[in-house]
């Protein structure tokens, strides 16, 4: 997945082809989630889902800096991570609908998509639940000298879980190739992070010997550049990193969270959507840099819309797993 660039020149690495790819990947996430919300409102999706809309630049900027064989762990808000790491929409939609064609044969659902083929160790419905898993994957990479890197995605709410600090300490002690990516979208479920997070977020990495940085999570080029640096650093054996990406979720905590005024204002949401939209800003940059014509981007959007439409059709039509599967795969 990684387009070769010289890590030392990472800051200026984003050129035309890569730039368009970053845009395309973000658009796929944006339009995928559009369909998920659609499926929910049409009552075609069992349960709920947590949309990644607004945070696309984080997953894409990070995963484009990874190799296909590198590992990621994801969260309850995981669709973006899965897509960015290479999952295909048809099998993802199928999973969201509990169908056999899904990545987990319908047994996992929206919060548990996993895919060995793309190094996806799985989305996790326990906040911070995959921090240990990502750290262990990095331990394997180091022990077996595979050159792989593990990325652990989590929301800033996971900063409340002590296990995060336990594993950061372990990763620092053993110099493991893992990057802890904190997606600070300002809210846990319905509470602003300032009400639940004391002290200094970056210091929560350095205090445990983990190199820490933060980045504008709405600027995909900036995320990609820093990811390049931290990932190659980890790959070179220089140890773990903690990256805070400042971002925002456009919609509710989950698809059913409609009235949000009691915890955040419509105006706040508007400002992020209008001034700091990762797709809009990337499009403007690509055009201003003459790296692409506006029409081309429109074409990409239409093409992806069609891809999603077909993927949804596939998933809706797909069969449920056979009932006898219920007690299969409990044990390997």
């Amino acid at each position, binding site marked *: 997945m990684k387009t070769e660039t010289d890590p030392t020149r990472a800051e200026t690495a984003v050129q035309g082809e890569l730039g368009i790819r970053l845009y395309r990947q973000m658009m796929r996430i944006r339009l995928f989630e559009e369909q998920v919300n659609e499926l929910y409102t049409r009552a075609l999706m*069992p*349960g*709920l889902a947590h949309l990644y809309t607004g945070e696309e630049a984080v997953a894409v900027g990070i995963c484009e800096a990874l190799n296909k064989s590198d590992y990621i762990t994801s969260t309850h808000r995981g669709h973006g991570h899965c897509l960015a790491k290479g999952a295909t929409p048809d099998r993802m939609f199928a999973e969201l609908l*509990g*169908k056999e064609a899904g990545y*987990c*044969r*319908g*047994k*996992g*659902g*929206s*919060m*548990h998509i996993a895919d060995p083929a793309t190094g996806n160790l799985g989305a*996790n*419905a*326990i*906040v*911070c*639940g995959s921090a240990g898993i990502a750290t262990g994957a990095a331990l394997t990479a180091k022990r077996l000298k595979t050159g792989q890197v593990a990325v652990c995605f989590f929301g800033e*709410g*996971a*900063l*409340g*879980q*002590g296990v995060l600090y336990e594993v950061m300490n372990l990763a620092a002690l053993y110099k493991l190739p893992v990057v802890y990516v904190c997606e600070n979208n300002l809210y*846990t*479920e*319905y*509470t602003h992070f300032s*009400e*639940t*997070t004391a002290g200094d977020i970056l210091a929560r990495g350095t205090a445990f010997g983990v190199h820490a940085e933060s980045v504008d999570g709405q600027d995909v080029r900036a995320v990609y550049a820093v990811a390049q640096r931290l990932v190659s650093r980890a790959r070179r054996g220089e140890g773990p990193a903690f990256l805070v990406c400042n971002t925002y979720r456009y919609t509710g905590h989950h698809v059913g969270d409609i009235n949000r005024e*009691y*915890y955040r204002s419509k105006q706040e949401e508007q400002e992020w959507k209008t001034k700091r939209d990762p797709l809009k800003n990337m499009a403007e940059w690509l055009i201003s840099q003459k790296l692409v014509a506006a029409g081309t981007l429109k074409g990409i959007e239409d093409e992806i819309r069609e891809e999603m439409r077909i993927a949804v059709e596939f998933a809706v039509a797909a069969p*449920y*797993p056979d*009932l006898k*599967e*219920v*007690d299969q795969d*409990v044990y390997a």
Partner: protein
Amino acid sequence: MPEIAQRELTFAQAVREALAEEMRRDSRVCIFGEDVAEAGTPFKVLSGLVEEFGAERVLDTPISEAGFTGMGVGAAMTGLRPVVDIMFGDFLTLTMDQMVNQAAKAHYMSGGTWKVPMVLRTTLGATRRSAAQHSQSLHAWLSHVPGLKVVMPSTPYDAKGLLKTAIRDDNPVVFFEDKMSYKQKGPVPEQEYTIPFGVADVKREGEDITLVATSSMVQVALGAAKLLEGAGISAEVIDPRTTWPLDEKTLVESAKKTSRVIVLDEGYGRYGVTGEIASVIAEGAFFNLEAPVKRMGAMHVPIPFSPPLEDLTVPTEQTVFEAARILCGKA
């Protein structure tokens, strides 16, 4: 349930009313947990409490189940009566050290000098399409541990009366609420009442078979009992209401009367609640049983997301009905 009960409340309203009444009665009672204040929890069970009692007594916490549960233990030891909110029972995994090594043992280890009057409220139950990490019923773990009391209300009436008792109890109490029952309506009297622990409730009287059911399984058992009536089988439905203390006497008496028993519980079927209750009955009613005690719990699998699969993992009116008919030799 007394006749005077006219007013109907939902299970969620009954829980909220119990908390509100106890918080008015005793200023030491306070609540903390994730999104318990303005949000009133994702299930809206606590809506309105922060408005009446203020943010000092209805405290939003970070996502730190171990940390704030431990804080609850210390607060309880020193003069508050905290009601700790753990959103999903699946997250009890994170609180086990605080509950089992600290809360449950502080009184005994200190030779009876320190007390831990806290309540941990949490949820259980599947079929919400929430998959394996948001669908477990882990009350057997807590019932296994000396020093804890475990409450499993099945109706709005029981929920209110048992929660008030839990809050007034000087021991750590774990209070399980079935997520799927929150909207269930039932009579709840206006006037003050509490329900003692360790007293089972006969939810329905019957002669031919006893269905012992906890929490979410009580409605299933009552539904099955109706179906059984149609098949000419009179089923008695007994709800222990607390798994610890356990009202062994009532369970055994009913078994002696009917001579046939099914134990229903939504926890995993192995090494859990059904094994304990079935053993108590098999021992107490040994010479009266016409057939082995039948156990029905959650299938021994992580709860799958896919709806048709998930629906197979939990006992239903139909599966209980059929099991009962077989047990009564009328299949």
